[in-house]
């Protein structure tokens, strides 16, 4: 399958060829947002003046015979926890809305802009990234472009919805427990949550330092690949940034030869709706994969991730929890407060378990290259839906959306989420999981699946396109 001509690289190719000006591409994105985002609520801030100025700069460089970069004129947007110079990093909160504007762009924003991409705005999210649905009490729920009565997922809900709606072809989000993978799956787009530490988080408001990563959303695998290529690499200003040397651009034409692909069994083969589990089975069958592998102690990994997240998140916001707890979104306040009250032993024990679990995952990936697993247990829930029934058991919708994503990010593994199916018009995704630092392998596999038509973005009804 050929990537859509209106993906980021497709737009950049048109701009570089002189078939489309960066200014026209930017105006088109701004017009689409103006026409469609009142219904979806994916953007919290549109930086139109900056976008138009950046677009003119790209056009001027081209007119002068200079190279504006591989993403020349391609519009992009970022979750509203990345610093954007001159804008307040709101992070979905009322409290941070009182902060002064950022003095500089976050490193990820700076790198994409330096590659010619044009920043269009900042995107809706759960308050301080603590949630899976982007039902934000301060800025409103972000709606799913496939059904406006349903959530877009979270916490990077705006990032998933803005790509699915066709407002911009490329967005950034952050993933701590599934905050990139869940909205990507529910909105039917591709996403990459890289290996922990490979992308700079400098200038990104943290949620849980030992789990946070920058992730990308796109309508094509090649856009994910170029985004990873531009963004990965050591940044000395991020103390948790891995100092591995940069890699060559990912090979998207390598195919699947020589790769050992398996499907996750046990924990990952139950606890979801039949449609969600069938989506994985169908992909496995198409690839001739039948051998299940067991990811050991996945339930405990999810449990430990929740303890670590609550404790670290509460510590980060402790001063605000002491002085103005009433200004938090009620959806996050109670969880942050609980995290602040959790005994230190629980946190330390969870970190001990994490090192043990990570070692076991390393051992597992000596026997397999890529593991397939569901991304979410069900398609997008309705806005305000508190409970769902799975396997005759009633679960809390919001936290349960992370049931398949949390154990994986807990180990710091890279995951590429591919859109594979729709159920009653609602998208479903599959996680492709690889060993630490095998991000390029995931891009290679996803590109092959995209070419075969086994992975493709779902098509939302977007009259503003």
């Amino acid at each position, binding site marked *: 399958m050929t990537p859509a001509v209106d993906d980021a690289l497709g737009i950049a190719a048109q701009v570089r060829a002189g078939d489309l000006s960066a200014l026209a591409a930017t105006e088109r994105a701004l017009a689409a947002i103006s026409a469609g985002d009142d219904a979806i609520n994916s953007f919290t801030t549109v930086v139109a003046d900056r976008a138009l100025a950046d677009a003119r700069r790209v056009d001027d460089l081209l007119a002068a015979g200079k190279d504006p970069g591989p993403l020349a004129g391609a519009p992009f947007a970022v979750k509203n926890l990345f*610093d954007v*110079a001159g804008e307040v990093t709101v992070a979905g909160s009322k409290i941070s809305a009182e902060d002064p504007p*950022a*003095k*500089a*762009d*976050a*490193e990820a924003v700076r790198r994409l802009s330096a590659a010619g991409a044009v920043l269009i705005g900042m995107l809706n999210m759960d308050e301080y990234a603590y949630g899976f649905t982007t039902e934000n009490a301060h800025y409103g729920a972000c709606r799913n472009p496939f059904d406006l009565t349903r959530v877009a997922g979270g916490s990077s809900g705006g990032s998933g919805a803005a790509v699915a709606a066709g407002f911009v072809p490329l967005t950034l989000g952050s993933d701590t427990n599934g905050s990139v993978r869940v909205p990507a799956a529910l909105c039917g787009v591709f996403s990459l949550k890289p290996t922990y530490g490979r992308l700079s*988080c*400098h*200038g*990104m*408001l*943290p949620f849980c*330092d*030992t789990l946070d990563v920058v992730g990308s959303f796109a309508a094509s695998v090649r856009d994910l690949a170029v985004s990873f290529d531009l963004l990965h*690499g050591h*940044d*000395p*200003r*991020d*103390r*948790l940034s891995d100092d591995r040397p940069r890699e060559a651009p990912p090979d998207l034409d390598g195919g699947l030869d020589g790769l050992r692909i398996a499907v996750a069994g046990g924990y990952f083969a139950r606890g979801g709706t039949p449609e969600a589990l069938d989506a994985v089975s169908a992909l496995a069958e198409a690839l001739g994969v039948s051998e299940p592998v067991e990811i050991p*102690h996945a*339930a*405990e990994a999810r*449990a*430990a991730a*929740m*303890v670590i997240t*609550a404790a*670290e998140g509460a510590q*980060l916001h*402790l001063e605000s*929890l*002491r002085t103005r*707890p*009433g200004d938090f979104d*009620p959806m996050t*306040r*109670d*969880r942050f*407060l*609980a*995290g*602040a*009250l*959790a*005994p230190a*032993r*629980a946190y330390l*024990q*969870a*970190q*001990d*378990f*994490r*090192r*043990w679990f990570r*070692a076991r995952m390393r051992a597992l990936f000596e026997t397999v290259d890529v593991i397939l697993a569901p991304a979410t247990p069900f398609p997008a829930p309705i806005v305000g839906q508190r409970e769902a029934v799975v396997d005759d058991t009633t679960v809390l919708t919001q936290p349960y959306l992370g049931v398949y994503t949390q154990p994986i990010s807990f180990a710091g593994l890279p995951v590429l989420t591919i859109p594979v199916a729709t159920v009653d018009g609602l998208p479903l995704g599959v996680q492709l999981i690889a060993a630490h630092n095998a991000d390029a392998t995931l891009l290679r596999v996803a590109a092959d699946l995209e070419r075969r038509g086994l992975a493709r973005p779902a098509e939302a009804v977007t009259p503003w396109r």
Partner: protein
Amino acid sequence: MDELDTYARAAARLGRLEIDDAWWPGVLRHLGVLCDNAALVEAVPIALTDAAAPPTVAARPTAADPPAEGSS
């Protein structure tokens, strides 16, 4: 629940957190989930030699901080 409530109120005093009466049911529910999760983790018989290194937790600087010299 009484035991959890007693612990939580003491921990809130220790942490200088003033929790509105209306919020306590939600806070206790979430704290109970965290305790259940901690118990689940504790039940895994991990070898201490596998987990001896101290956890790494460090705050990231923001873009507002001046960049280090020579950084990209």
